[in-house]
């Protein structure tokens, strides 16, 4: 500042002008403050996606979103007639498992809209169907875990079955904050639906010891290539590095279960299997140097597939039967 200004005197006129300018600035600031309440159409258009269309009976997915994300697209619904519009390539798989409807919506991180994921909620009608698509989609070697018993994660996705729903949360890219938001949303979804996996009782019959994490799945039709052997739950076990498959299938009646067990036994015998000595009501078959065991217990068919030896196979089948017996006893 110049020395002159130190002794500078402000004229009344200048004082008034200065005052006027400051008042104008205040008026501009106030005007801007007022204007910012009249939302730009671009913002209101975006907000429209937060509310599901009134006429559609959608699951209000946006309401489940945690604070860190916001809707990035409107919710969309698909029924069996339109599912192919959304997932052309995989639609058949869902149809065969009893697909009812699909609701999808994209969500982006509020801080960084470049990061988004799309949530797919498949209503499969029953928990069994939901679990069936869940297990058919699952690829091996993936990290198990999530808000439900049946959940797994990939670097950019979360997949889970809960109640009659199968959920996919697929991210635009593998990002930790994005996947954390996806996890939070999945958890809220599960909490909102409430706990209900009781329908899939067979899942609980596979003993934990030796079981490969995340290996339980449901084969909805023609399990092991056996025509008509449907709705079979399987789990992988490892014995000294050798993989063994155990399976459980429930039928309407004990007779039906008995018939199904015989069909399985006959299938192996027909394809060159040799019957081995076995306890009563249990079939033990040697086929191509692997052991098959199959039995029926009440409404259930229990079996062990491609075991390395008779003892391992019988031991595992017996453990499953014991578990089943305990469950039945608990209920009665």
């Amino acid at each position, binding site marked *: 500042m110049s020395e002159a200004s130190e002794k500078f005197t402000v004229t009344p006129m200048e004082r008034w002008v200065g005052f006027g300018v400051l008042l104008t600035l205040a008026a501009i600031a106030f005007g801007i403050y007022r204007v910012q309440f009249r939302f730009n159409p*671009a913002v209101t258009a975006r907000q429209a996606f937060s509310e599901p269309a009134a006429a559609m009976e959608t699951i209000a997915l946006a309401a489940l979103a945690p604070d860190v994300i916001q809707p990035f*697209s409107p919710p969309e619904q698909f029924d069996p007639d339109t599912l192919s519009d959304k997932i052309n390539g995989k639609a058949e798989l869902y149809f065969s498992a009893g697909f009812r409807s699909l609701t999808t919506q994209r969500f982006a991180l509020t801080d960084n*809209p470049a990061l988004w994921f799309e949530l797919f909620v498949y209503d499969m009608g029953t928990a069994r169907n939901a679990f069936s698509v869940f297990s058919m989609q699952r690829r091996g070697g993936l990290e198990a875990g999530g808000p439900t018993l049946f959940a797994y994660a990939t670097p950019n996705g979360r997949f889970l079955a809960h109640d009659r729903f199968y959920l996919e949360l697929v991210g635009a890219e593998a990002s930790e904050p994005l996947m954390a938001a996806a996890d939070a949303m999945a958890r809220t979804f599960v909490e909102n639906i409430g706990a209900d996996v009781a329908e899939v009782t067979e899942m609980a019959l596979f003993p934990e010891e030796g079981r490969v994490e995340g290996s339980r799945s449901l084969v909805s039709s023609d399990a092991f290539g056996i025509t008509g052997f449907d709705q079979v739950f399987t789990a992988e076990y490892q014995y000294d590095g050798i993989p063994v498959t155990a399976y459980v299938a429930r039928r309407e009646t004990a007779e039906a279960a008995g018939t199904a067990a015989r069909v399985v036994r006959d299938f192996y015998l027909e394809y060159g299997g040799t019957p081995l000595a076995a306890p009563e009501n249990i079939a033990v078959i040697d086929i191509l140097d692997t052991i098959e065991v199959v039995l029926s217990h009440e409404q259930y068919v229990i079996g062990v597939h491609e075991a390395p030896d008779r003892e391992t196979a019988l031991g595992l089948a017996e453990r499953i039967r014991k578990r089943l017996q305990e469950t039945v006893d608990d209920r009665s």
Partner: protein
Amino acid sequence: MRLVTIRRITQGFFLVLMIGSCLVNRVGDRWYELRGWPVSWLLELDPLVGLATVLTTGSLYKGLLWGTLTLALTALLGRFFCGWLCPLGTLQQMVGAWTDKGRRPKARAYGRQSHPGQKIKYLLLTALLTMAGVELVCPLVDLSGQGGWIPPVAVILAGIVLIRTGQKTPWKRSTGWAMAVAGSLCLMLGNLLPGNRLLAAGLQTGILDPIPLVYRSVSLVVLPLISPDGTFVVVTGGLLTGGVFVLVLALSAWRPRFYCRYVCPLGALLGLTVRWSVWRMGRQDKNGDACTGCGRCDHHCEGACDPANEIQWAECVLCYNCRDDCPERIMGYSTRPSTTGENPGPDLSRRAVLTAGATGAILLPLARLGDPLGVGWRPDLVRPPGSLTEEAFLNRCIKCGLCMRVCPTNVIQPTVLEAGIEGLWTPRLDFRLGSSGCQHNCIACGSVCPTAAIRPLALEERMGTASFADKGPVRIGTAFMDRGRCLPWAMGIPCIVCQENCPVSPKAITTRTIMETVAGLDRLIVQQVSSRAVHLNLPFTRSPLAGGDYFLAGPAGPQNALRITGLQAGWIQVAGDPAGAGFRQQTPAAVVVRLQQPYVDPLHCIGCGVCQHECPVRGRAAIRVTSENETRSRAHALLAGTGLPHSKD
């Protein structure tokens, strides 16, 4: 409070307003997002934006009326906009003040003396406005158009009348001569060069206009670099955009407000406007004995307008520093002229003005020789949804960068040379650089564009719903498959990423399924068959055969192939019964893959580019959007005449 302090407060206020406008320009309803903030208000206050678009389009877009307020106040008060409002002026002033600190008073005063080079900005303005307005003379030259030869002849006659009646009034005589010569020229051009391409107008003021320049620089360079919202944004041409900004500021370290003094076309426009202003700065030394000749009034002069002598009024930016510096208090702002005399306007030679005008008039016709708006159009130039036809778009876009900053996926990028020299810094869509394609449900760019180069769209119009259902959605282009790069088409690898990501309903990408034998896995021999697995002489393969798209075909042919579910030590596990499907020891077998080959349906494709963004073929995607079939141009309609819907322009 001293007026200089008030001026600094005002400058700070508008600088914060500008930075804030750029900062909040992100779609969202929180206070630091777009909400209803008037992000383009400062641009609308810029009268050069309004004037130039009026010249190029013949109409004034609503918000730009604010510019007339600026002009009116400037005509009354002087260049208050430059000295008190302009954020680029403020930034330069800050740099200048900072570098001045280390200088001696003499050197400081030297840097603030007027210089003949200050006329350059008026010539630049002349060139830019001629470029914008040259088409206005079209009715005079186009003899085949309305009025035929009457308009030019009328101009010649009016000129002759002026010459005759204005014998003693030099300006009437020169105007008369100018009219007569121009009318004759037009008549001659119209006769000799019918249908000439010499009269092409275009808007290029935005390149140099300080308000778009500062908006563009802050939005495209400063904010992405400091990343206040923690996002990593890709921006093309950063070196050019940022380089210009840095250069402007660096030059003001050498000469204070260098850009304002020598380059700024807005400053020039306002400088011309103040010629007859009511209030003005000047020395009020009635008796001529108060001034001691200390020259301090020159020391901090921002406009380099020589207040110690004959003040260059057109250059004064009302910084008020001279008034503050004068120890005798004789510098002031008043309705009386300066006692040391004043020069109200720039002294420009007629030749220089004519040369500048002619240069401005010829540049665009030269740039358009390649007919970039006609047959030479660039199909990879995809403009944002709602953009006007290319010519109308270029006549409105001021290159401010608002649309690029607001885009939620950052798919809008500034062009460097993709739209030719003329299109520098205009918006184009780059589907690779954005975080996704153009969002189907977003209308942000049109909602913030200050000149309607991108027209504001209603969401219903964008999506083709409600009353726009019969017109269909707004299309910005069409996706084309590059079968030479597409995985299922070119390499036999299953992929339906583009189809799955296509956001429109029904999808614009359909697939046709074929079964193909996998090369190298076509002559296998069955070694052993188990209940649900087949042992083969399988060579090493990288293909993840168990993905669900691979099948094992045996003697019953590919129609009865079994889906492969797993692969372990030479054993291929299959869904189904291999023996039932005819697999026996020593029978031949082959691995076949189910491929879903994508096709684009131009009827449903809106050109959003999500498929291009998601395509796993990195680098040059296997599906790419070009501007064919864009709604804004009938000439770009695909399969013209076959009834593709909704072209309008």
